[in-house]
């Protein structure tokens, strides 16, 4: 009785491998209880123990079907979680929009350019840090991954990483102080680095989370390419490109299947990079064209969204096969 039930529940567990362990164990406990109750009832009708369990397993249905149905329910995030995941992209878009549109008188006023930079990007950075902290305290749910991606990217940028030019402000190693201090405080509160380890394990277990963590590079690339553009349509184009990224993330969180998640990220990345490309070609060449650069942008989106995270998925599969063989 134990063996057939164990095999069944192992098959269900395999379908739930991308869920956190606690949730997975809870679901299995519930199914185990159902099988035991069903088996007990059947035994009162005269069936032997093993027969009753086999009948109970048959009544429960295909382990794969049950497991995949449960996985789809639990994989899909709520609207609240989707909006939380999109928030850093919106914060980035707002920071740029306010800087470009919201404060022209300030920009034109001598001595206000740098304070305006601090104000807008400072608020944006604060959003990243708050999201990072809340995500840590909630044991790194899926929506928290973009916050880590943005924090890491902007910290690299402000520490002096040059992508075709120096940032307006440049802090060197000091750029890491706010974020690392926050991580230290969070580690004290949670008495260890378990949320961070959980995040890394989560990305290994479900490589689509790694796609989500890397996704801010698409928004960053859009911003970097717009950097040289100084035209009236710069602001709206950047806003559109970044909001497309946000839409991709919302689609990702709200999707229950892996291919849907990847399609949302890849499609939105391609759309936002195309908007960026069209706007920049219009600026430099006087006409909006879709040139040979578009396939390169598509390749970049594929590398970020699919290839790098997908290699984690391949590594995970090989690791599981090795464990199964041993």
């Amino acid at each position, binding site marked *: 009785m134990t063996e057939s039930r164990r095999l069944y529940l192992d098959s269900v567990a395999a379908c739930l491998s991308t869920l956190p362990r606690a949730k997975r164990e809870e679901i299995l*406990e*519930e199914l185990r209880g*159902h099988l035991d109750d069903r088996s007990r009832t059947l035994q009162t009708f005269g069936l032997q123990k093993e027969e009753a369990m086999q009948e109970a397993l048959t009544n429960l*249905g295909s382990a794969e079907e049950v497991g995949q149905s449960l996985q789809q329910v639990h994989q899909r995030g709520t609207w609240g979680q989707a909006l939380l995941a999109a928030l850093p992209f919106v914060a980035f878009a707002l920071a740029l929009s306010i800087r470009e549109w919201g404060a022209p008188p300030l920009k034109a006023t001598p001595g206000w350019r740098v304070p305006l930079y601090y104000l807008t990007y400072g608020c944006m950075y604060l959003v990243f840090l708050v999201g990072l902290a809340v995500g840590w305290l909630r044991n790194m749910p899926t929506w928290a991954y973009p916050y880590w991606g943005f924090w890491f990217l902007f910290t690299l940028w402000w520490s002096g990483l040059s992508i075709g030019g120096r940032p307006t402000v440049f802090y060197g190693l000091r750029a890491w102080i706010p974020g690392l201090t926050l991580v230290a405080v969070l580690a004290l509160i949670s008495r260890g680095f378990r949320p961070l380890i959980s995040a890394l394990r989560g990305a290994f277990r479900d490589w689509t989370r790694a796609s989500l963590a890397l996704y801010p590079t698409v928004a960053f690339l859009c911003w970097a390419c717009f950097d040289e553009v100084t035209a009236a349509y710069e602001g709206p184009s950047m806003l559109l490109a970044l909001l497309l990224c946000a839409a991709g993330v919302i689609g990702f969180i709200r999707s229950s299947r892996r291919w849907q998640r990847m399609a949302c990220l890849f499609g939105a990345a391609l759309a936002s990079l195309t908007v960026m490309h069209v706007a920049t070609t219009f600026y430099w060449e006087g006409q909006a064209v879709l040139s040979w650069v578009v396939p390169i942008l598509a390749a970049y989106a594929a590398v970020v969204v699919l290839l790098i995270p997908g290699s984690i998925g391949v590594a995970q599969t090989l690791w599981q096969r090795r464990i199964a063989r041993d």
Partner: protein
Amino acid sequence: MLSRKQMRKGSTDVLILSMLAERHMYGYLIAREMKERSEGYFEMQEGLLYPALHRMEKDGLLTSEWRTVTGARRRKYYLITERGRKVLDKSVAEWITFTRTLMRLIGGQSDGEPQTVSG
């Protein structure tokens, strides 16, 4: 032609909510009561009950709590929420309207027994 399976498909959530509106239940009990009360008409694949329960819990129509049965053994009981009750009331009203309208269109009498349409 609609099969029984197709017709039942849209009613699972309403059935679950209506049973939980009476009392708290765990998954196996819900499946058993559904089958017994319907005299076998609503006998669903039991494993697919749990995705429905978990989905409704995520949507805020149900809550759940683990209760110790004996020793270390636990059962997860489901409870309907206020939102679940509102959704249930609305769904039942829609089903009643749907059934009445359908029976009227196919020539049903007021007591629900269908007449033959052909002359």
